[in-house]
């Protein structure tokens, strides 16, 4: 085991121990403020086996996960092509940019009340908000990706008589791919943040719903469970995207993994 992993593990173990001690035997932290390991365990059992906030844990997880992935794909599916178009065509950029600049400063979470007004508390409202949140980073990074392509690479492609379709598929897209993936990473992050927030404000199922109800119930153990789930699945989806990125960008010389 490397030194770094060993120290990391030791730190986490120490923190875990401190947590246990502070909340249980020593009671430095009152249970109303922060849950003890036992509280968390009990809450976990409850939500997994008996259910909480209208559902079992796996149902909530599945619901949130579904919405994040769907929202992310819609946002990426619309954002990346638009960014590529704006990067490639100065005309498209000139036409679309001002509107984009107008909408962009509005934080994605600020769309939540409007989304609720328009679509209620159901899934479509969530997808709409996720779309707004995740759309922007994909556009911007795809745009930058195209703009930072070395001009001589495009010139070489044109010199070789590459037709339009092939140019986009085999030249533009791979060349912009590293930045596109940066955008995707940001989009995924934004998707999670927005979903949790949207579910916190109002939802029927989901991890945010668990947090919401736990907050009203003053149930720290359950809050902890909810947050941990958010962290775990956020991490898992990020790692999945990173794996796809590594496979797709095998041809690059990325010297260090980006967090």
């Amino acid at each position, binding site marked *: 085991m490397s*030194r*770094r992993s060993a*120290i*990391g*593990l030791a*730190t*986490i173990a120490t*923190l875990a121990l401190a947590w246990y001690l502070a909340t249980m035997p020593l009671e430095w932290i009152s249970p109303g*403020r*922060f849950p003890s390991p036992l509280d968390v365990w009990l809450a976990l059992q409850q939500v997994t086996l008996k259910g909480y906030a209208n559902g079992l844990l796996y149902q909530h997880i599945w619901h949130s996960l579904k919405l994040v992935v769907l929202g992310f794909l819609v946002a990426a599916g619309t954002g990346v092509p638009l960014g590529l178009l704006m*990067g490639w065509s*100065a*005309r498209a950029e*000139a*036409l*679309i*940019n*001002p*509107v984009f600049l*107008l909408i*962009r*400063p*509005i*934080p*994605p*979470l*600020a769309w*939540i*009340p*409007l989304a609720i*007004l*328009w679509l209620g508390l159901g899934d479509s409202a969530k997808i709409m908000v996720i779309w707004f949140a995740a759309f922007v980073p994909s556009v911007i990074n795809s745009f930058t990706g195209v*703009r*930072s392509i*070395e*001009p001589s690479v*495009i010139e070489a492609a044109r010199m070789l008589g590459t037709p339009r379709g092939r140019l986009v598929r085999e030249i533009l897209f791979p060349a912009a791919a590293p930045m596109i993936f940066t955008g995707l990473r940001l989009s995924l*992050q934004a998707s*999670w*943040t927005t979903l*949790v*927030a949207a579910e*916190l*404000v109002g939802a029927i199922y989901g991890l*945010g719903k668990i*947090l*919401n109800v736990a*907050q009203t119930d*003053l149930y*720290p153990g359950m*809050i902890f469970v*909810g*947050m941990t789930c*958010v*962290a*775990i699945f*956020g*991490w898992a989806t*990020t790692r999945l995207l990173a794996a796809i990125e590594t496979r797709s960008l095998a041809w690059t010389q990325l010297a260090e993994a980006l*967090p």
Partner: protein
Amino acid sequence: MSALRLQTLSRAEAAALGAVGLLSFFAIWSFLSLSGLVPHQFLPAPYEVAARFGRLLLAPFAGATLPEHLASSALRFAYGFVLGAVVGIPLGLLMGWFRVLDEIVSPAFDALRFIAPIAWVPFAALWFGTGIGGPILIIFAGAFPPCLINAYRGARFVPRPLIEAAQMLGTSNLRIIVEVLLPASTASIVAGLRVSAGLGWQSLIGAELIVASTGVGFMMVQAQLDASTPTVMSAMVAIGLVGLAIDVALRALEAAVRRRGLA
């Protein structure tokens, strides 16, 4: 390498296209709203939103006028953002320099980083009720990571020769951090501040949607409960404007740093 430019548009042409884009946007909006294709209650016309915005500048809604709500929000933001920077930047620099510190803090940081700042709201509510501590915690959760990461990266990737030169000159650790790492990381740190401000402002709005009794996010929620779309949209515009102002200010800072040759 200069940026890729396939067609060079004259400034006039670019401006013209931009105007077309903007006007089309407002035209379509107005059309959808006034023709009734979208129920008017859901989509007020642009001028209605502008009128409401004007009114909110003077007349109170949900307890205060728009500027007063904004001031409330801005204050919370300032506290949280400054706290995030003041804790994150020095810690990042130290972690970039002291490997041991990096090894201790990083695992915990990496674990906590994946928790969306907004997910801290329940605990914030539990601990601080509707007091100012709650939003500050959430803003901190959003603003802290970029400050830390960028300071860390800046310190770690200072060119080796600079550090070796400093060591050769017998510079103490503290002095190296303050007089070599910090200046060399300035560009990265300022970039981090920009991201941090954006995330912090976002997190604030999110927090105010859930646990606040004043502030522009709170105002939006009240407007939504009242089904008052023009007010909701006015609040969105206000939020966007403030966010933009913050970003412009930090971008100017970035440019100033670059001009000073620190980048």
